[in-house]
């Protein structure tokens, strides 16, 4: 099994979720992260004129654990739905998973996904 970790733009989350669901990949987790990359941040301004320059931007990290043979398909689905072509589109990482369990039933391995 592989864990597909995708760091994407928050505003693309809905598109990606829908694309995955349409292809049968329902189970997933999302978590808010703050990321730094090539992309530059937003500037906030204080009362006395101080500027607060964010060098990190809000991103969303999606985690989907899939069978090895589905990994590439999921990567492609996410990349297509998340791409804008501009800096800041994010990254996808593949991380090996040794085992899984469905808590409700105790099923193990790919049956747990």
């Amino acid at each position, binding site marked *: 099994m592989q864990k597909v970790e995708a760091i994407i733009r928050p505003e693309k989350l809905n598109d990606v979720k829908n694309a995955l669901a349409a292809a049968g990949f329902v189970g997933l987790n999302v978590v808010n992260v703050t990321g730094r990359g090539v992309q*530059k941040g*937003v*500037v906030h301004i204080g009362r006395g*004129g101080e500027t607060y*320059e964010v060098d990190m931007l809000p991103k969303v990290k999606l985690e989907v654990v899939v069978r090895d043979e589905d990994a590439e398909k999921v990567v492609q689905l996410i990349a297509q739905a998340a791409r*804008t072509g*501009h*800096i*800041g589109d994010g990254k996808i990482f593949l991380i090996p998973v040794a085992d899984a369990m469905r808590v409700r039933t105790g099923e193990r391995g790919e049956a747990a996904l």
Partner: protein
Amino acid sequence: MPQPTIDSGDTAWLLVSAALVLLMTPGLAFFYGGLVRSKNVLSTIMHSFIIMGVASLVWVLWGYSLAFGPDKGGFIGDLSWFGMRLVGAEPNADYAATVPHQAYMLFQMMFAIITPALITGAFAERAKFSTFLVFTVLWMTLVYAPVAHWVWAKDGWLGTLGGLGAYDFAGGTVVHINSGVAALAAALLFGRRLGYGKEPMEPHNIPFVVLGAGLLWFGWFGFNAGSALAAGGAASNAFLQTNTAAAAGAVAWTLASWAVIGKPSVVGAASGAVAGLVAITPAAGFVGAWEATDGYLNILPAIVIGAVAGVLCFGATRLRSRLGFDDALDVWAVHGMGGTWGAIATGIFATAAVTSLAGFQGGVGGLIDGRPEQLLAQFAGVAATWGYSFTVTFLVLKALDLVMGLRVSEEEEVVGVDVAQHGERAYVLEEVGVAAAAYAVRPAPAAQPAPRPQLAQGESQAASTSP
């Protein structure tokens, strides 16, 4: 009794006071709302807010008539003022000779709103909304209206307009003991919140608690000084007693929490102000001069009443916590016990000089004026209110438990009453956590005006939407 003609200054003062007391109920909504967990804040706020609607309607239909209408045996009014019949623009000299009868009725309405709202703190975070609505209507009718009648109505058996002569200037008995004791009954019948004593039930928004306390303090000037029903010396004195007791209560609870638990608590300061305000409520128009009107200790009674209330209610909160009944927002400890102390303190500290200023009964003082018998009248008021309010509230809730059920389901309680009962959640705040630590700060630029900051240099966060 003066010839009833309308005085514009008195009317302005009473209408403003009514508005101030109305504002106390949203204030209470925030005081209470900040103390609960975030999943129940809307339900808690809603309790107070919808009571502004329900209690207003009950009052203009039958509540005012039952409470202040022509007397039936000293116990309750009749229905001859139903629907505002005979409540018009002319003064009613029995109650307030220099303002329209409607203005007096409106001022009283605001008390009838906040009293059931106070009770809701007892069953916060677990009450079924439909049952709560029915309870509010029944309680106003069966408990609030009679007790208000006993104390304040012409010929009520307990008060100063032809009754026993128990002093309650602005509602220590009618509002605070009444709601605090009803809260005790409610806490026993509703039972504890799931996880009580095991999971943390920390206040979710303490700034809201302080906002509520601030609005309550502000509104309480209407509550107490408005109860003088005229803009003059009695109102000024009541205003002074009120502010001083609030101050003493806030400081006392803060110091008590510092001494006992090691830190001066902000929630404690807010609670202490409320405790002081509760305790001064029955006394505000009767106390003021300790010995003589030119004495250096003139202000001492208000300080004592407020400070004792702060310490006492702090102790009652701890006692409640140890007894283990779940009066979730400590209505009994603050309003029940604070109100009881205030009623007794009024019997101790009332002086003839101030009392006659208030126009009540032509000047009879309390213990320090050599009239210990006033304490008896005060005890009678306390005992009657405790007994009646507890009993009837208990019976009403017991009946409702059988008929409708008091609590939400366990499942709903876990999810939170906001989503479960109202289909809404309080906050949808974007994640902003780490971002705060992810900043680089620069001091204000020097001479030349900064270039208009852009969203980003070269590239923007939201490029995806503008292809």
